[in-house]
């Protein structure tokens, strides 16, 4: 370890084919990639050549965390899981999923920064990690069980405070639309079936160690407190959603929804959130009720409390208690999740009695969570549900299914918005039962191919939210103009980047955002108001690069990019400035590695370059601009007849987007013609060997 703090020091490698278990030195092999996705991409580059498929034993699954996981750094509870992505279409490429919960911290306390899984077990197994004791155990007794039951079975063996990341029946059945989940509700989508293909049911971890902080402990405490002082509500929304005595601004759309008189009504003793003055760091957990944000004020009376990840005060998973679902649907009255997991069930319905914020909607959410989080189903950021609605209402499902299979579903109940319909649909997706169950579990790209539907049709329909390669947009041009679009081009699944959207949705008035943006990205033109977009500007390319690299940095050092970066703050006395050097402050003190903000961003750039190189190698072409960074038609056709850059229009201008690509590639040091990194850019990032390997295949621009 050579005196570094932060890292646990070892990477665990488990070969399920041979039963081999060994450790590697984190610092020796992976320090230049920090951790998390950095380790993941490095392993994939070194060990998984092009042509390997997601379910091949040669594929790797890399569960990796960074030097901040397991420390007391706020929002440091994320685990990155990197592998070949089974829903990436038409060819599988590298991608990562991310889960919160307690897994990241527990892995560190057990002494590991990452687990590399390779091979395939002959029969179902689970991996038991209890500090230095690591065993591959027989999982035949829990194979076929849901995630909850499997989790309980393993904690019976390992102790109640063990952390278990398990797959459900969906993953076992090699349903690509499946998750791995720890701590009841913290999942990473897309991973489940890759684990299933290796006959790996679960990983259970007990850790009794601790993480050494290399720097001065008082300084560490100061930085933690400073970081806490910059936190907003969920998604770093820094403005409350209604007028508060302490606040200069409010925005009905933010997730900072605490207020006097708002209560967690489902708690044993009702709890009032209070006004949550940002200077009161002991009440950060009361600021956001994500269920009330998504399900309406109706959800307050069902709220028990917030839940969340290790070291995170935000508690974005809302625990709900809805007694009516026990009697009506025979499921537990208590459930919990956040965002897409929370609304998983209701999103299958075009209409629900009482609307999306009514009681039936809440019940549909409870039913959906109950099943999806046990079967281990993935919604692909809502694409599964949007696809289903379109396929049904366009008559495609009726056309593609046999008459008997079609009749086996209660479509009348579905159209009326009866949550009980989910009991017919979701188990069949998890079990690959019938044509509909099978096709919905494939992911959009493979579904379109199987049913001979045109991807172009999906790319034209803005409401479908489809982006490319089997995946949806994730904070793209529809809400964040060119910046969001550029980021969405970069990945092989939905981008999962919140660096830009958290800033643009933070609730501050546009002039304040522009003032902060000018400080961060050099010009106020870097940000636009929603629906009043302006032509491309160099500062937008800088913002996009910053956003992209911050995501990779967060995913590598284990900070939550759903919460960060902390570019703005709720503090009036700071002029609402945040601090985008907080990551490097924490990193320096935790590890003792003296990198400043710019140096750490350079490492993030190296990490993302490796992702780009993996994509280029996987696709076998350097023509990224035309073959990979493709843009769906709906981006340009939101309001026919209305020119881009007029108020109320969110569509982009074709020529302007070409300018945006030029500027973005330039910012990244990539070749504008191909969109591929140049040899010099690889070299500058210390990836000469990567460039060399690609050059041998003519995959580096001349």
């Amino acid at each position, binding site marked *: 370890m050579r005196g570094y703090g932060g890292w646990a020091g070892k990477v665990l490698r488990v070969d399920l084919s041979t039963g081999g278990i060994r450790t590697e030195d984190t610092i020796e092999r992976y320090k230049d990639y920090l951790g998390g996705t950095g380790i993941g991409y490095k392993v994939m580059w070194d060990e998984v050549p092009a042509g390997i498929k997601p379910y091949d034993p040669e594929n790797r699954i890399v569960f990796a965390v960074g030097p901040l996981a397991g420390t007391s750094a706020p929002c440091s509870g994320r685990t990155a899981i990197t592998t070949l992505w089974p829903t990436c279409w038409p060819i599988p490429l590298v991608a990562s999923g991310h889960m919160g919960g307690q897994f990241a911290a527990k892995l560190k306390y057990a002494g590991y920064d990452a687990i590399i899984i390779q091979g395939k077990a002959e029969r179902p197994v689970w991996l038991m990690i209890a500090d230095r004791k690591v065993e591959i155990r027989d999982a035949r007794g829990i194979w076929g069980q849901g995630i909850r039951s499997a989790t309980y079975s393993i904690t019976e063996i390992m102790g109640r405070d063990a952390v278990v990341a398990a797959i459900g029946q969906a993953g076992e059945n090699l349903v690509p639309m499946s998750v791995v989940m720890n701590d009841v509700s913290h999942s990473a989508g897309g991973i489940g079936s890759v684990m299933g293909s290796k006959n790996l049911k679960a990983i259970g971890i007990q850790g009794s160690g601790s993480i050494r902080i290399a720097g001065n402990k008082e300084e560490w405490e100061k930085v933690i407190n400073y970081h806490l002082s910059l936190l907003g509500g969920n998604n770093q929304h820094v403005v409350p959603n209604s007028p508060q005595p302490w606040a200069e601004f409010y925005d009905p759309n933010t997730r900072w929804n605490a207020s006097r008189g708002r209560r967690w009504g489902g708690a044993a003793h009702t709890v009032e959130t209070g006004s949550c003055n940002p200077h009161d760091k002991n009440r950060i957990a009361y600021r956001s009720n994500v269920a009330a944000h998504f399900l309406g004020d109706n959800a307050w009376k069902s709220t028990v409390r917030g839940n969340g990840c290790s070291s995170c005060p935000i508690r974005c998973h809302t625990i709900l208690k809805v007694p009516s679902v026990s009697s009506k649907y025979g499921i537990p009255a208590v459930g919990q999740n956040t965002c897409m997991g929370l609304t998983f069930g209701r999103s299958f319905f075009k209409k629900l009695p009482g609307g999306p914020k009514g009681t039936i909607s809440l019940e549909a959410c409870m039913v959906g969570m109950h099943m999806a989080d046990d079967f281990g189903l993935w919604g692909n950021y809502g694409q599964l549900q949007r696809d289903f609605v379109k396929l049904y209402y366009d008559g495609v499902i009726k056309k593609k299914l046999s008459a008997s299979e079609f009749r086996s579903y209660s479509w009348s109940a579905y159209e009326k918005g009866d949550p009980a319909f989910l009991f017919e649909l979701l188990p069949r997706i998890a079990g690959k039962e019938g044509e509909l169950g099978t096709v919905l579990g494939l992911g959009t790209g493979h579904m379109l191919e199987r049913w001979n539907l045109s991807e172009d049709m999906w790319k034209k329909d803005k409401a479908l939210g489809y982006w490319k390669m089997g995946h949806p947009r994730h904070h793209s041009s529809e809400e964040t103009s060119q910046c969001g679009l550029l980021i969405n081009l970069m990945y092989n699944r939905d981008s999962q980047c919140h660096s830009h959207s958290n800033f643009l949705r933070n609730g501050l008035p*546009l002039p304040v955002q522009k003032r902060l943006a000018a400080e961060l990205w050099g010009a106020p033109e870097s940000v636009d108001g929603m629906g009043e977009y302006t032509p491309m500007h160099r500062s937008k390319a800088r913002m996009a690069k910053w956003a992209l690299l911050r995501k990779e940095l967060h995913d590598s050092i284990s900070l939550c990019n759903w919460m960060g970066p902390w570019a703005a703050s709720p503090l009036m006395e700071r002029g609402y400035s945040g601090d985008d050097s907080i990551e490097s402050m924490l990193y320096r003190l935790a590890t003792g590695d003296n990198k400043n903000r710019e140096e750490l961003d350079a490492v993030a750039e190296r990490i993302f370059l490796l992702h780009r190189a993996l994509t280029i190698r996987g696709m076998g072409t350097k023509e990224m601009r035309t073959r990979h960074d493709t843009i769906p038609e709906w981006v340009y056709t939101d309001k026919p007849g209305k020119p881009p850059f007029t108020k109320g229009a969110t569509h982009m201008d074709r020529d302007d987007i070409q300018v945006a690509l030029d500027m973005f590639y330039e910012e990244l040091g990539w070749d504008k013609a191909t969109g591929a990194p140049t040899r010099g850019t690889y070299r500058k990032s210390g990836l000469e060997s990567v460039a060399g390997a690609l050059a041998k295949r003519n995959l580096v621009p001349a």
Partner: protein
Amino acid sequence: MKAPIIMQGAGKDNGTEHRDSAAEMAAAVIRERSAAARLVSASEITLLLEEHPEPDTNISGEGVTELLTRLVFDNKDLHALSGAGVQWYYSSRSMTEAYAKVLLQTLEGPVGLVAKTVRHNSRIYQRPIPLEIFEKTPFNLACRQVFDCLTTMAATEGYEDIATTETSISGIYLYSTTYLETEHAIMLAEWFDVGQSENP
């Protein structure tokens, strides 16, 4: 706005609560009210001072006005606002000017409150706002009252700019055409009510 005033502060004289002066007492009241998210009027302060005729607090009428003017001048955190023909006070230790102004608007009746709030949001934030925000604190209007306001405004000169739009899930949003173009407002309302939930 009328509420019992609880005197707090450093006690003396065998622990009994006591104010050294009318100025201290008035300042404490303003700060206490602000901490409770309320404004306090000049007349309430006058009444309080009259009800506590201790040696240094026994002033009234113009004396109180003069005292309050001096208080605001001497104390950086104390501020005065005029509204509904009344002088109101708050402390910026626990209340922003923005919030104090919202409280002031709640005193002006529902129509003025709704219109000013809608215009403020359209002008400052360039956004329509959902009707249900008026049911939340500190607006505290019943849904029926808001609809009544809309009916009144539709029939009253001076409110021609207040407009509504309905989203695809029946959410009602309000905006001012003076500050927000209709197409922009419609697009934003749909995004806030529907789009954001689908893009968390």
